[in-house]
């Protein structure tokens, strides 16, 4: 005979489940902030627009309001507010930005896109943050994924993906003038939005800016340089009945005299059509990036990359338990590169093609249990066919919260430089070189393989009370075939007269492997409608080991290039209807590779709404402690790291 309790339990469980669902939509909505409310889709049957709490990945979203309140004038400074990202400033123009380790000025495991256009350069693998000098006021949202995204976005989405989406032209109607003026930087942005035909909207914009050079640390040898640049562009959006069309374009020039100069332009078109519950999306763009000048450590380069990209996706209507998306893509990158002798590129003119196909199916195993299986297969001209599969499962128990787990594979393809460039670096005489100068010649390797990651993640997020939500992620990343610079043999003495020197050759290889594990915690607390607190902590442990045969001088360098601990506290407080006080404090632990000590610092912003059309804000950055280096210098990232000072600036935003 079963005991009474055993038969009561099912009933009790059912009751718990139904009472949890009785918490209605309205009370959920009341907990949301204004910007969250404005971002909600209303009465749309589609399940395609997933909310952050529904995804089986470590995702953070920055809204336009988050961006405005951060006071940030550049993307990397803004990304400092994202839990789990590591941002270190290096010079006036350079930042190191990464997630879950491998941070570097040339961090190559983070894929960054603007409106679906990749701004990750295949020239050296990485993102030039000073090229990506977007108009902050025109960003709708930024989605940051920590962890691999290869099954959706393809190669190079290894440690994370940053997806920047600009505002729909309908949301930027009217004119706006924005000014930044401070002791270290200034900026002017003008924008005008207007109707474009019966069913469309458009905006045109222009931006000019300058950033002062940073101070040289004691013992540094090359002074930083002043950075300035300008850009202009447009975006138009048209509603064509069941279809939408978006076209945008931009042209820019960024200059840091005698060190780096870029120019470029792009044109992007995006078309989408809903047919019932199904959807077709087509996107194409042309992007020209010209490296007019690049000079570091005696090496110089010029390059021009023309990228043409075409992408199609079809989202099927949900059938039974399946929710299927398929897609295909083509990209060609035509590059011309030229290096200052004795450095050289062996394949100076090349056209690399990338063919890709992907499929993703979300299976509703039960009402609250979903499994997403995805795979992207690509063919690239460097390493041939690459498979990037993923499996993600999420369970949303009736009691609340979402528990998710995933396993995914991602790869990074070799860059043009790693594949075919020859660099000569000069090392000053030291005890290690026997008092002689040394020249190091590193050669590209056309047989280089992709870097590989298999990542395992587990996460949980829950709204604990109407005012408090928490998010936790644990990860284990297993890397193989990481790219190294392997020294060949011993240094050879070149008996030149009158000054003999040592010569040492190196070649790029895939001689490093290892694991990263860590966890990320964040909490969002809203004591009232006008006050929001966000706290986060991230822990990272990176353990690399060289494969037998590796002779890189510092193969384990990356272990100490990312902090083990990071913590942040953000407070956004509306003091009165016309005053906003924002605090962003952060702790970053030491970088052992560069002997950089841990630090705590904070940024403050006081915003004042002067009239209904004019906002002013006073910003202070790096307010705690003296000017300090946030990153280091080595032969790989080449240029000096400078002291990041305290800085003040005012921003004004006028809409008319």
């Amino acid at each position, binding site marked *: 005979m079963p005991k009474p309790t*055993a*038969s009561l*339990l*099912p*009933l009790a*469980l*059912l009751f*718990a*489940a*139904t009472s*949890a*669902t009785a918490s209605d*939509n*309205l009370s*959920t*909505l*009341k907990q*949301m902030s*204004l*910007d969250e*409310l*404005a971002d*909600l*889709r*209303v*009465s*749309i*049957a*589609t399940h395609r*627009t997933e*909310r952050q709490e*529904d995804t089986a990945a470590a995702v953070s979203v920055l809204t*336009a*309001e988050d961006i*405005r309140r951060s006071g940030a004038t550049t993307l990397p400074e803004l990304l400092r507010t994202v839990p789990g990202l590591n941002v270190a400033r290096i010079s006036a123009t350079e930042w190191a930005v990464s997630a879950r380790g491998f941070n570097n000025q040339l961090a190559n495991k983070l894929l960054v896109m603007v409106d679906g256009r990749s701004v990750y350069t295949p020239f050296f693998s990485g993102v030039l943050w000073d090229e990506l000098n977007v108009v902050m006021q025109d960003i709708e949202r930024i989605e940051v994924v920590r962890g691999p995204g290869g099954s959706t976005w393809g190669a190079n989405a290894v440690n994370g993906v940053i997806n920047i989406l600009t505002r729909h032209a*309908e*949301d930027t*109607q*009217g004119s706006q003038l924005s000014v930044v003026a401070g002791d270290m930087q200034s900026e002017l942005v003008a924008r005008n939005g207007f109707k474009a035909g019966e069913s469309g*909207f458009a905006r045109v914009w222009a931006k000019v800016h300058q950033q002062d050079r940073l101070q040289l640390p004691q013992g540094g040898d090359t002074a930083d340089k002043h950075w300035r640049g300008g850009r202009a562009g447009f975006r138009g959006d048209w509603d064509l009945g069941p279809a939408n069309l978006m076209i945008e374009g931009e042209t820019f020039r960024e200059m840091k005299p005698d060190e780096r100069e870029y120019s470029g332009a792009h044109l992007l078109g995006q078309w989408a059509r809903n047919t019932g519950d199904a959807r077709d999306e087509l996107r194409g763009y042309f992007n020209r990036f010209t490296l007019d000048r690049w000079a570091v450590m005696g090496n110089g380069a010029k390059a021009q990359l023309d990228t043409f990209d075409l992408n199609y996706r079809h989202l099927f209507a949900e059938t039974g338990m399946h929710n299927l998306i398929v897609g295909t893509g083509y990209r060609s990158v035509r590059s011309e590169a030229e290096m200052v002798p004795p450095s050289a590129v062996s394949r100076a003119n090349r056209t690399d093609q990338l063919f890709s196909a992907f499929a993703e199916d979300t299976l509703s195993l*039960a*009402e*609250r*249990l979903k499994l997403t299986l995805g795979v992207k297969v690509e063919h690239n001209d460097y390493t041939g066919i690459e498979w990037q599969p993923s499996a993600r499962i999420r369970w949303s*128990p*009736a009691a609340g919260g979402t528990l998710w787990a995933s396993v995914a594979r991602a790869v990074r393809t070799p860059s043009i430089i790693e594949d075919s460039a020859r660099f000569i670096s000069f090392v000053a005489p030291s005890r290690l070189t026997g008092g002689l100068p040394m020249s190091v010649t590193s050669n590209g390797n056309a047989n280089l393989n992709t870097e590989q990651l298999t990542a395992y993640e587990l996460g949980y997020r829950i709204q604990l009370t109407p005012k408090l939500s928490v998010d936790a992620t644990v990860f284990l990343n297993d890397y193989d075939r990481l790219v190294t610079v392997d020294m060949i043999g011993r240094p050879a003495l070149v008996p030149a007269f009158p000054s003999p020197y040592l010569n040492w050759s190196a070649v790029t290889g895939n001689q490093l492997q290892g694991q990263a594990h860590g966890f990320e915690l964040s909490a969002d607390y809203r004591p*009232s*409608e*006008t006050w929001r607190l966000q706290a986060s902590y991230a822990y990272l442990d990176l353990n690399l080991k060289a494969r037998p045969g590796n002779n890189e001088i510092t193969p384990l360098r990356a272990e100490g290039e990312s902090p083990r601990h990071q913590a942040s506290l953000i407070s956004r407080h*509306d003091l*009165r*209807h*016309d005053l*906003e006080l924002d605090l962003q404090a952060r702790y970053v632990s030491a970088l052992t590779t560069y002997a950089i000590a841990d630090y705590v610092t904070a940024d403050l912003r006081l915003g004042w*709404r002067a*009239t*209904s*059309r004019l*906002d002013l804000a006073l910003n202070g950055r790096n307010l705690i402690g003296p000017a300090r280096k946030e990153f280091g210098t080595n032969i790989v990232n080449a240029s000096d790291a400078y002291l990041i000072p305290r800085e003040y600036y005012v921003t004004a935003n006028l*809409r008319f």
Partner: protein
Amino acid sequence: MGARFWLAPLLAALVALTHAAGPSADSFAENDVKAAFLYNFVHFVRWPDTVAHKPGDPFRYCVLDETLAPLLTKALAGESVDGHPLMTVRQPELRNVHECQILFLGEQASLGGLSQTELLRRIASQPILTVGDQPGFTARGGMIALVKKRGRIHPVINTDATDRTELKISAKLLNLATLTRDGKGNAQ
């Protein structure tokens, strides 16, 4: 024997999981979102001090819309700001309209036989936040229109209308909204 003890709760849990669909995460009713916006406005608009009545006096949301009124009543239940309980007033009289802090006008709604434009003109200088949900509402002199735009509820603010009163709208709300002026026709 033992297996059955395990089976019963497991089955129940599965039943609960498959049948207890919660509020749909990505689709909310339009009027619920509008009610949530209205609830929020009290925090992001400042009324002049002369409106500050005695502690305990209610903060009045006057609603001329039969669909929205019950939702708003539900949203405001038990809420207060600075000691003023938030309350809904359905169908206020024209002579009492000055007691409203927020006035929501549905599509055809008006008071005392006045057209919406006339009503809005008559109370134009009073510290009453006028809110509607028709695209033409701001062109008629209303302050905030909650319009549907690309599947979302979007606030459009006529800053000429708000600037005629002592009401001050916060930067957060202004930056989120599309701004328009008198005589700009329908807000986009």
